[in-house]
């Protein structure tokens, strides 16, 4: 009979030549011993005994540091890798406070509802063992009305999410008097998720929170915990507006971890095309799954998740049934997600295919193997995903499978870049004007502003005067009063610019039409267009009708051997130039632009071979985005329009990967658009813009460093072993154009330097 292999034996398989040839880097991270200290004497005796009952007789050193910082009254951020006991970093000081002062209140913020639910169960177990009357509740959209009143009046610990705080707590602060009067701690878990637009919004929500606390006479201490990022202290200070103590003396043990870089074999030499990362990831996952090793596979997009899921369910269908492999991503309904999380913990589910939704600290227990389909786009993200394997003390293995994209190839060929460099900084811009104005409205609704009052550290008199002119506020004496019959928080979503989601309705069974998921509007343009194949839990659906106005997509189950991939056409208008520098050869600028995006056509791509087997048009209205951008313009006298376009596309293809690397952000946060004739100056121009309305400071950073960015792009193209451009550098073009040479030529032309290559 076929014997199951242990994880060590599976690793021996990986060392066999066939696979070992593709493994370009094998890094073993040695286990780390725990650094423990005894429980501090000052800790309340009931907490001590509760901890002892749970088998905790000592603390890790970072937990003690956290406890001591809180007792000194310092706000702090604790950097905690997965499974290092981060919850005690905040639960200890909070419980200590509440145990000594039953009136004290603490507010916990988790980025998602699910995380709050997890934490509540854990907290309540601890409280039960303490034997004290401490009340801890979650407060979210699911909390029944009759419980809400109890939570508001009597909850010592209230666990919620920023969205709820924004729309349900702060605007009704008069119903939460006892919370705000006695608020001692605000806990912000998963700090690293508060970046970009979401982070900028939440920073403003916290400014509002602090304003209200001040009104009721409290001044809470902020406790943040974060995964490893480059700037936890800076981020925490930006988010909370408080000076922060950094705690990063992690004392938790870790098991041995093998981190493998896997580069799929080249299948087309001249084009330097490698085998699909998706297919390779499938094969590797199979190796683990058929040996009963719980495995998580990460994919970069929802579509990839569904494709991988289809493949893997097919593989294990006979032995375990398709239920043992599950997908997990944003579009699933909460109930589905809870069931999957549970299945993972109790072992019913052997494998899971996920987008980055599982990067967050949802407790899914311990997995032995983790496969990353493609580089996730940032070092921090890659480590987060890798942390899913071997959360506790065991030996574990992580395999990162590179795709043909320039970024993946760069990372996989330069392991030092990945292992030696510090992870990215998380950026936000709380003073983004659009976001700031939104929250000033909410803040005015909550409490009138006074002349000279600041919002966080921001002078806001001008904005308030603007809102008076807009007849949203009314100035009387020294105060600005809310003078509008609307409820501002309801029109402001913290998560995205277009808050309205498209619901996906399955009408396969006429008698039982049901909603199977939802998707944001921007994604729906390319994923839910008519005739598109939408994959959900591994089942294929064809979109029959997309009612864009009513935000409904009607789908029907189908069984076809292809998936669809849509193109998005983008046009750019310069609205205002804030900064400009020009040289003989080129001009660089930074300012506000309006981006108009429109889905144009889609292609049908066959499974397995990934052949293009057909296409069709997409009829959807344009979506507009106002944001900040930087652009580089140059004169072209040498190249024909056709060659110019080819060269520009090639450069843009590389920049898409280099620019995010340089400013340390996710590849999706920055977009690169080349234009042969830009609308505003009729000259060849390369635009790089922030994906979020109003911008969050990424393109501004590129503006100051165009030369460096171009040099990096040039180096990347020149280093690529291909002959005339390949998906790993300048992309592939129609026959006849050597995009690689054209791109190199063009970069030299832009830089104004002599060309060294023919």
């Amino acid at each position, binding site marked *: 009979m076929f014997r199951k292999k242990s994880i060590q034996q599976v690793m021996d398989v990986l060392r066999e030549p066939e696979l070992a040839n593709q493994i370009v880097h094998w890094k073993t991270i040695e286990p780390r011993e725990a650094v423990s200290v005894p429980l501090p004497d000052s800790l309340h005796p009931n907490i001590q005994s509760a901890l002892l009952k749970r088998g905790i007789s000592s603390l890790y050193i970072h937990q003690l540091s956290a406890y001591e910082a809180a007792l000194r009254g310092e706000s702090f951020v604790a950097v905690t890798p997965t499974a290092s006991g981060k919850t005690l970093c905040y639960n200890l000081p909070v419980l200590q406070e509440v145990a000594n002062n039953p009136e004290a209140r603490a507010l916990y913020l988790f980025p998602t509802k699910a995380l709050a639910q997890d934490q509540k169960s854990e907290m309540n177990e601890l409280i039960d063992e303490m034997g004290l009357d401490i009340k801890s509740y979650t407060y979210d959209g699911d909390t029944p009305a009759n419980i809400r009143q109890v939570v508001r009046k009597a909850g010592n610990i209230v666990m919620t999410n920023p969205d709820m705080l924004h729309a349900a707590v702060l*605007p*009704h*602060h*008069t*119903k939460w*008097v006892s919370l705000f009067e006695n608020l001692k701690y605000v806990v912000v878990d998963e700090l690293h998720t508060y970046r970009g637009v979401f982070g900028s919004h939440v920073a403003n929500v916290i400014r509002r929170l602090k304003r209200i606390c001040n009104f009721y006479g409290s001044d809470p201490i902020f406790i943040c915990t974060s995964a490893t990022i480059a700037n936890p202290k800076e981020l925490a200070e930006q988010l909370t507006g408080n000076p922060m103590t950094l705690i990063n003396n992690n004392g938790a043990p870790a098991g041995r971890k093998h981190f493998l870089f896997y580069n799929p074999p080249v299948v087309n030499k001249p084009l330097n095309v490698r085998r699909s990362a998706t297919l390779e990831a499938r094969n590797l996952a199979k190796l683990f799954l058929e040996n009963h090793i719980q495995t998580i596979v990460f994919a970069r997009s929802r579509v990839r998740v569904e494709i991988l899921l289809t493949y893997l369910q097919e593989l294990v269908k006979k032995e375990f049934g398709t239920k043992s492999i599950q997908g997990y991503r944003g579009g699933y309904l909460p109930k589905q997600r809870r069931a999957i999380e549970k299945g993972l913990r109790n072992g019913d589910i052997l494998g899971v295919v996920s987008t980055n939704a599982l990067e967050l600290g949802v407790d899914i227990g311990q997995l032995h193997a983790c496969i990353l389909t493609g580089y996730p786009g940032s070092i921090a993200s890659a480590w987060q995903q890798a942390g899913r394997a071997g959360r506790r003390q065991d030996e574990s293995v992580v395999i990162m499978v590179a795709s043909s994209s320039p970024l993946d190839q760069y990372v996989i060929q330069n392991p030092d870049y990945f292992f030696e460099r510090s992870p990215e900084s998380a950026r936000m811009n709380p003073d983004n004007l659009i976001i700031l104005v939104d929250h000033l409205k909410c803040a*005015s*609704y*909550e*409490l*009138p502003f006074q002349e000279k009052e600041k919002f966080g550290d921001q002078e806001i008199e001008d904005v308030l005067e603007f809102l008076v002119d807009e*007849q949203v506020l*009314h100035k*009387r*004496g020294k*105060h600005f*009063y*809310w*003078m*509008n*019959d*609307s*409820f*501002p*928080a*309801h029109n402001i979503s913290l998560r995205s610019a277009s808050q309205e989601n498209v619901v996906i309705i399955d009408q396969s069974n006429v008698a039982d039409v049901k909603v199977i998921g939802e998707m944001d509007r921007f994604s729906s343009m390319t994923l839910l267009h008519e005739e598109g194949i939408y994959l959900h839990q591994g089942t294929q659906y064809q979109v029959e009708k997309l009612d864009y106005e009513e935000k409904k997509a009607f789908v029907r189950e189908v069984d076809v051997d292809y998936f669809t991939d849509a193109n998005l056409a983008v046009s750019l208008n310069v609205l205002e130039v804030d900064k400009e520098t020009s040289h003989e050869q080129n001009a660089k600028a930074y300012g506000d632009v309006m981006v108009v995006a429109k889905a144009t056509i889609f292609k049908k791509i066959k499974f397995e071979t990934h052949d293009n087997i057909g296409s069709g048009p997409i009829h959807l209205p344009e979506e507009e985005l106002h944001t900040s951008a930087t652009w580089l313009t140059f004169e072209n006298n040498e190249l024909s329009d056709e060659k110019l376009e080819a060269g520009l596309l090639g450069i843009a293809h590389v920049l898409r990967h280099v620019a995010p690397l340089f400013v340390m952000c996710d590849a999706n946060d920055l977009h690169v658009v080349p234009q042969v004739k830009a609308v505003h100056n009729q000259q060849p121009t390369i635009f790089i813009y922030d994906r979020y309305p109003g911008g969050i400071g990424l393109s501004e950073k590129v503006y100051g460093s165009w030369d460096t960015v171009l040099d990096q792009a040039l180096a990347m193209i020149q280093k690529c072993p291909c002959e005339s451009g390949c998906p790993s550098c300048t992309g592939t073009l129609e026959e006849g154009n050597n995009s690689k040479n054209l791109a190199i030529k063009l970069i030299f032309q832009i830089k104004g330097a002599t060309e060294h290559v023919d």
Partner: protein
Amino acid sequence: MSIKNKLNRLKKHMVNPVFDPPVESKRNLEDSTGERIQHADYWEKFGASAYFFEDDYCIVRKVKYSIDTQWGRYQFSDVLNAVSNWQDVDADHPLHAKNLDAADLLFFDTETTGLSGGAGNTIFMLGMSQIKGDHVLVHQFFLPGPGSEVALYHYFLNHVKELRNLVTYNGKSFDWPQVKTRHTLIRDFVPSLPEFGHFDLLHGARRLWKDTLPAVKLSVVEKEMLGVNRIHDTPGYLAPMLYFQYCNEGDPTLLEGVFQHNEWDVLSLITLYTHMSGIVTGNGFRTERETYESARWFEALNQKEHAMALYQEVLQTGTSLTSQSKKSLAALYKKSDGLEVSVRYWLELLDENDLDEEPAIELSKYYEHIQKDYEKALYFAVMAYSRWKEKKRLTKRKEEQEKQAFARRIERLEQRVIQYS
């Protein structure tokens, strides 16, 4: 006939406020430094005065009506009878003015800058009416600008100490929580809120008329049930906009309509309370539906005797709601040791209506558990099942459950019949 004559004839059905000279003879429109407040002339003409507190003030307006004034189908004085009639009712009821005088009731309504209950929604007018001897006094407190709330609530809470008997329309979930919210924001500067009790007429209006009226908004109830016809009323939803405009343009005449609307609202509450009390206590005309709904109301309050008396009244005088009343009566008798009466009603119901299976189920239970007559029980169970099968049901799952319940009952009874024969 000229329009004028027509109007004169219809005058009785219209609202004609009697503008008595304002009560406070000495009107105070100057602050401590002798400076006259903004729009002082206008407020003076409008019969309003200012109340000063520290550096700020609020506007106070009083209007008197004679107690004999006709307001829709009632005179204000009718509320005296309504309240005294309650004293003879020995039952708990949310409208019950136990041991109260009509003068104790405070008819209360607010005007706000928005409909959502949050910290940014300001009350800019508190209005109330009260019986004062031979007249009705309307008392309005107005916020001359945002930020003067301390003065407003200081006056309100010092002049209206007793809030135990507030009569409102939807005040339980809107007006009063809103007052609490505003109070919380300035609680350090004003007296604390007194205990309050509450008659919320919306609740009763829903019970009595939700099947009769297209909506149970006060404006609809007032027109359809009370015969109050407002002429040139400023609809409530315009109030926020008008207040904003007043704040921006500083023209107090914009608010005349809002003052009037609020005044009419608190006056109609008197009539509405009178009318609803009459229906529930049985003093005054009530329709069959109103009697039936009053009975249900008492039943919901677990006041069985009152409920039964009212159901009986429907049985004797009604036409369209008799079966429902009989069913309710049967159920009430069953609960209060009158099972024989229940049985009689169920049998009658079976004859009167051949679609309803419930009486048959009840009879089946009765013969099975009380009389132990399994054959009769089986007979009614089968009858109930065949009636049930005729009906269309909305949900599949419920249908399946009910079907199984029938099957179980019939099977059980069949066995009993065999067992005992």
